[in-house]
């Protein structure tokens, strides 16, 4: 038994060193060499050189000039990720979604027959979802166009340019990156 414990201690320390120190540091080193941008968090810089976020982490938008992101349990706090965890029959879930639907209808000035896509009023799993569905983007385009004095077609052209297809046609969903789209809107507004 004594020798068993001794081996266990030594094997613990050796594996700790190998897979707990050498392995992650090796991955960190290689990643920094060959994928430096991704390893640091895919940071996005605007034309004037300011870092305004990460292409993979969603942000909260409230201005009429911008497309809005999905509801987030943590309010897009980068240090508090997570879902609402509300059960499917939860009264709180129904109340929260009803309120969001009402707010969207009012903001976008929707006719009663126009549906509100579910992703725009349901909280994401991460609380940091960077995307909305193309349907949720199309719904917002007229309001953004009015606020920016642009034609709806121009805004929609940007939306389409920022719509990513499903990978290989079957992995994942068609989606629009909200931050990148909003940056493109700002860029389009600037005189060249």
């Amino acid at each position, binding site marked *: 038994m004594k020798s068993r414990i001794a081996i266990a201690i030594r094997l613990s320390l050796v594996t700790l060193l190998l897979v707990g120190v050498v392995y992650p540091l090796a991955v960190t080193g290689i990643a920094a060499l060959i994928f430096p941008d991704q390893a640091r968090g895919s940071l996005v810089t605007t034309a004037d050189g300011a870092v305004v976020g990460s292409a993979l982490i969603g942000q909260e938008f409230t201005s009429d000039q911008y497309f809005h992101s999905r509801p987030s349990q943590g309010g897009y706090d980068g240090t508090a990720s997570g879902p609402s965890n509300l059960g499917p029959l939860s009264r709180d879930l*129904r109340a929260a979604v009803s309120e969001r639907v009402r707010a969207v209808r009012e903001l976008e000035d929707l006719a009663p027959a126009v549906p509100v896509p579910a992703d725009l009023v349901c909280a994401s799993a991460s609380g940091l979802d960077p995307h909305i569905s193309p349907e949720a983007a199309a719904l917002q385009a007229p309001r953004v166009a009015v606020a920016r004095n642009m034609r709806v077609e121009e805004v929609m052209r940007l939306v389409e340019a920022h719509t990513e297809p499903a990978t290989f046609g079957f992995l994942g969903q068609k989606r629009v990156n909200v931050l990148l789209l909003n940056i493109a809107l700002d860029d389009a507004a600037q005189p060249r």
Partner: protein
Amino acid sequence: MWSFLVLSVAVLGVVTLLTRPLGAYLTAVFSGERSARSRLIAPLERIVYRLCRITPDHEMDWAGYVSSLIVFNAVSGALLYGLIRLQGYLPLNQSGVAGQDALTAFNTVVSFVTNTNWQAYSGESGASTLSQMTGLTWQNFISAATGIAVMVALTRGMARSKTRHIGNAWVDITRAVLYVLLPISLALSLVFVAQGAIQNLGAGTVITTLESDTQTIPGGPVASQEAIKVLGTNGGGYFGANSAHPFENPTPLTNALQVIAMLAIPAGLTNMFGRFVGDHRQGWTLFAAMLILFCLSLTGMYVAERAGNPVLEQAGAAQHAYSGSASGNMEGKETRLGVGDSVLYATSTTAVSCGAVVAAHDSLTPLAGGLAMLNIMLGEVVFGGVGVGLAGMFLFALLAVFIAGLMVGRTPEYLGKKIGSREIQLTILAVLAVSGTVLIGAGTAALTPSALDALLGSGPHGLSEMLYAFASGAGNNGSAFGGLDAATPFYAAAIGIAMLLGRYLFIIPVLGIAGSFAQKKAAEESAGTFPTHGALFVTLLVGTVLIVGALTFFPALSLGPILEHFLMQAGTVL
């Protein structure tokens, strides 16, 4: 619909294609063939043996094997305990995380040592970079290696006869880490980084958003932990949101790769089993039973989630207003993944004992959440956790043979070995220990006021949260109906105990069976032998798994997810 079908066929197809080569490789590694020992790794293996003073050709009997595993788990657990208690004083703690309190640390240690990765703390605020990188990543490797070692020893027990020896636990653990887990994790983590998973030692970047708010873009060595998290069916996320977090699982491609990584080793082990016992068909039979159960569960979950949640519809959310395949219940799901990719992940993570999540399981529609729970309750034998999943399926195969033997009046035999009362007793002990822990644990919680206060859901959903928690703990899964507050003292202690019981009251009987079969002489196959391969046995095996699981858990499930489903149909909110 079509893209989901293509996705499922593609992912399961890749897993099936990998099964044979992986099985061949695992066989070579664990039987110590020279061909498997690459020039790069073999010298490292020898250094490990020399440093640890391990005599590689010294074989152990089952008691020696199991006590080595337990001593190793205990010692490494004690080291981890020290690390996370003292993390506040140790380096690489940029965000100033304090040491975990004794009870939370106990829960965390048990959780990572038993390959559960239930998290009573949140990744962002409960563990320092050092704890995550050195402590938790390390345990991800060695707890997975422990699981693989159990299956390798069991396989040897079936393949050998008239010996007490079932291998050397130190050698099996070392080889599982060096030849299997480490090289694949290295490659996988770099693919994850290429796709956008982060890998740095920084504290994160504080930025000013377009609307002039500040936001912290987190940092950390995430990709390296992510790779072994899925490959070792561990499941503990670097961040609270686990694999839903864009820095853990940035694209639909990484999502599919994570599913493949979860399923690959458990599937490959079935093939290794067949090779060791000298009959490939035996491995493919177990594989087929697993695949059938997987597809049943996947289909059910997809149909339920795709139909959506009437409560959301009542609230005015249009769940089917999409041109693509995004429609369905989107509460607690990511846009890039939608319903289909999330459901594939949810089925996989509960079928194997991974426990990583890309969608909020608590917000799944009742039957989908119930199926996730059922996958865990069936014993996670559908591919299952690395090693222990196949060991569980092996026990069901023993039961199936035993039941068939009773029906037709033959002496039950599996792979030429007579099944005696000792093996059946140990099998029943293993099956009962896990399911007993789940039901008694959830029952106790239902009678404890502080445990009920920690729930987010009410009515049948509250029961589901408790059932899921204990199933996840005892089954060493680690995913959760996240509304339940796992950090409360009752759950920190009770789930900690459930994880220990579920792990060791399973491993000990399994290795006992391995030792007992190793001593038996394999009889030649005769006309009277009940064949344990082919469609008939697959059917029998699937039936055994479903009947044992259903009989044990149906009453509890009918008060939880099934009742909730009918309430949903009736338009009730709780």
